[in-house]
């Protein structure tokens, strides 16, 4: 579907409790913008909003 070399968005886990996401990773666009989201956990505070909140934040924007 897509021939571009670099993706628009990249996400990968950092440890077991967080995910690092880069929006606008492809060349020639605005960005990049980096976000840390948290994976709710019974033993630790999350360091960023859960990923669902990032999507709802986009809706609010």
């Amino acid at each position, binding site marked *: 579907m897509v021939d571009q070399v670099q993706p628009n*968005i990249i996400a*990968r886990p950092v440890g077991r409790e967080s995910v690092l996401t880069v929006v606008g990773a492809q060349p020639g666009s*605005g960005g990049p913008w980096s976000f840390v989201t948290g994976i709710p956990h019974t033993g630790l505070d999350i360091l960023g909003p859960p*990923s669902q909140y990032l999507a709802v934040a986009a809706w609010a924007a």
Partner: protein
Amino acid sequence: MAYRGNIALEDITVDFEVEPVDLPNAIGFGVRELVTLKGRITESERVRLERASRFCPVAQALTKGSMQIEDEVRWASGEVAEISTGLESLPQLDGALPNTPSGSVRGQHLLDTKEYDQSGKMEREGEAKISVSCENLTRTSRWILLGGHSSDGWVPPPFPLAHGGWAASTASTLSRLLPEVGDANSLNVELYMPAGRNRGASQSNAAEGIVAHRKVLRRITVPGSPSTFPIETVQAALHRDPISLAYRNGGVLLHDEVVVESY
């Protein structure tokens, strides 16, 4: 849309209450939306803005299942496979996803970030400050984000930002349901999207209540090989991912309301 439609909208705020929804095979969360418009707005204009709110690209993706997703899995061993849409023989996964914590999201338009051309015609709608608050283990935690449309690219546009949430959700879900994948430190989620439509077309669709289906390729890189991480296992995990479920089927919106505060 209001600013392009010559509606005398002076300010706008959007409030979402986010709550867990504990039902089998459900998305796992839902939102209640309140849009507050400020200005001398007629009832017909309020109705137009309400429709635009329900049909903006992000709302379409989360509430109307407008995304057309192609999934591809790449293993560290070099094999590549596309995921088919069939659900017939997916394995049951033992892991559990964490509950979505309750919280709120408030978006407030930053009026002085609107951009105009030399003739005074608005070129970009400007930015929004987004306040996020949710329950955490030891406290209520809060974050500030920015999003919207600005020519210098200071902030992410809403639709890519929503996809950022989807990519993060995918990575979170895979790392929780397939812990061996997450522990290997080589799980990667990439999204590829065709060149963006112009914002005018998106806003026209929103104003007219048209659902526009959009394609996206999601490429997931996992460690090992198809024998150590079968594609059916990856697919079974993806079918439990909250944002993926919303993108395919909609259903996030529990209630919405648009109110006008006149001066």
